[in-house]
């Protein structure tokens, strides 16, 4: 028994200091500085301090790339049929409903057709907010139709990827989308119109292992995570810490896997120029 006993006193936490900003401010994931949202918006959702590229929605992406932000949307009515009747603690159908409510989209990709720097172009943009931008039957079919259109009308095609990979809840059906899309791109080769793949943060798994790596040009945004296996899976397999910057766009450029890194601000001009250089304009 001790002679003296220290009085146990719970540490008092200081009272919460919250300031109501009505969501006007956001903390940069790169430099941790507090940014005014309006500044961020004016700067293509990139940090004005450190140039960290925030994720953008598929709609915002299309508006950034098409002239005057105007485009016609294709195949917007396509929706998943839940072919596996997938259900764990929550049913896949409920997850889809929730994602639709949050994003106003029926699945993780929008196809738009319009002018990009005065060249008629088809652009597909993926939406990360929709089940991690994962690729199931709808994403697969929408891209396959976009390729059919690009072939039929001899138009250049741009796909902006932002995805965790194939969608687990559609099992082998998701996997087969990789085959369907890649075979479509093989046919697109024959009409000699450019397909430019834009890889943004993150692009991994079955999306990287199919159309995202199959562009006539593969262009990445700065700092984007791009790979086949996710970093955690690799760490678990090899039981080693991964080197700094592993699987980032700069790493891929150094290893010869992509053609260029293009900041978001310059992306539209770059894509327009690439189209012209490849004879699509």
């Amino acid at each position, binding site marked *: 028994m001790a002679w003296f006993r220290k009085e146990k006193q719970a540490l008092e936490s200081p009272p919460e200091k919250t300031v109501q900003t009505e969501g006007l401010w956001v903390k940069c994931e790169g430099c941790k500085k507090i940014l005014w949202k309006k500044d961020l918006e004016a700067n293509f959702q990139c940090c004005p301090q450190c140039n960290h590229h925030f994720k953008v929605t598929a709609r915002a992406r299309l508006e950034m790339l098409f002239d005057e932000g105007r485009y016609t949307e294709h195949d917007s*009515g*396509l*929706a*998943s*049929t839940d*072919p*596996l009747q*997938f*259900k*764990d*603690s929550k049913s896949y159908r409920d997850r889809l409903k929730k994602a639709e409510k949050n994003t106003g989209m029926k699945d993780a990709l929008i196809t738009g057709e319009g002018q990009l720097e005065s060249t008629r172009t088809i652009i597909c943009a993926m939406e990360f907010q929709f089940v991690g931008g994962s690729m199931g*039957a*709808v994403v*697969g*079919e929408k891209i*396959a139709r976009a390729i059919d259109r690009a072939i039929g009308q001899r138009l250049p095609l741009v796909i902006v990827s932002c995805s965790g990979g*194939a*969608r*687990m809840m*559609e*099992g*082998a*059906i*998701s*996997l*087969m*989308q*990789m*085959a*369907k899309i*890649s*075979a*479509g791109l*093989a*046919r697109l080769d024959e009409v000699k119109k450019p397909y430019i793949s834009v890889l943004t943060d993150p692009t991994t*798994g*079955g999306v*990287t*292992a*199919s*159309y*995202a*790596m*199959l562009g006539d040009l593969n262009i990445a945004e700065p700092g984007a995570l*791009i*790979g*086949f*296996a996710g970093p955690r*899976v*690799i760490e678990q*397999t*090899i039981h*080693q810490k*991964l*080197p700094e910057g*592993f*699987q980032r766009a700069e790493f891929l450029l150094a*290893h*010869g*896997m992509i053609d260029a890194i293009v900041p978001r601000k310059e992306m539209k001009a770059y894509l327009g120029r690439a189209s012209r250089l490849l004879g699509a304009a």
Partner: protein
Amino acid sequence: MAKPTRQPTIAQELEKLIADLEKSGDSAATREEIGRLRQQLEASRGEASGQSTDAWQRVLLARHPKRPYTLDYIQELFTDFTELHGDRRYADDASMVCGFGFFEGKPVFVAGHQKGRDTKQKLLRNFGMTKPEGYRKALRLMQLAAKFGVPIITLVDTPGAYPGIGAEERGQAEAIAYNLKEIPKLRVPIVVIIHGEGGSGGALAIAIGDKVLMFENSVYSVISPESCSSILWRDWDHKQEAARILKMTAPDLQGFGLIDEIVPEPPGGAHNDYAKAATNLKPLLSRALQELQALDADGLLRRRHERLRKLATFVSES
């Protein structure tokens, strides 16, 4: 008797019990018990070959340490098999076996994932997990086969493409993607045989073809049941349920129209009788090749592209 495995199947456990009892001496009680166990064993074997088999059981059979591997099928089916090596870029990947041989007297090209039996072999074969150089070797030699008009047969059995630093540095994703785009262009028949584990993109990279055959107790999925369980439940304890909900068995895939035919296995699974498993495959493979070789190259490619374009279209339109 089968070697002990980490996760014995019910049949293996029963076999062991019977063997132990037989050794323990002859009495009316043990005879009765042995008889009862034999009945159970028969039932479990019957189940393993029927559609009612639990998905997880099939996963275990597909990964059975004694399951015939690619080289076993090559030995049973082809004569004068001549292995060829290397991607002419970086290395030779021993987890992917490629070569030419004769099938029913005619030349064919064969590519397949290869797993190892013992520790040394397992390491050499990298547990059947292919690296970019393996996929590039397969494509290089498939293109060679196409150049000489030789039909292509692929044997699929991999847990998945290797997730490692070197594989990423050398473009694992690009290697798989490039195969998916270039294989459809080959102007010779391609028959795909899934005979063990069809592990996601690592399997698909050599599984594009004009006819896809799948052994009864093999599985094919976008993710392993273990990984699926760890994503959904944050542990591996739900892998059996994950195997069920992923719909990864041959009957499931046939139901979705993703494979063409199911190859029946000998009672209890292909590991019980390699020769029988190969004999079951042979007429299906022979018929598939004959059917496809009857088409001219343009017709074959048209048919292939139509098939791939319609593949896995499960969408509703409003």
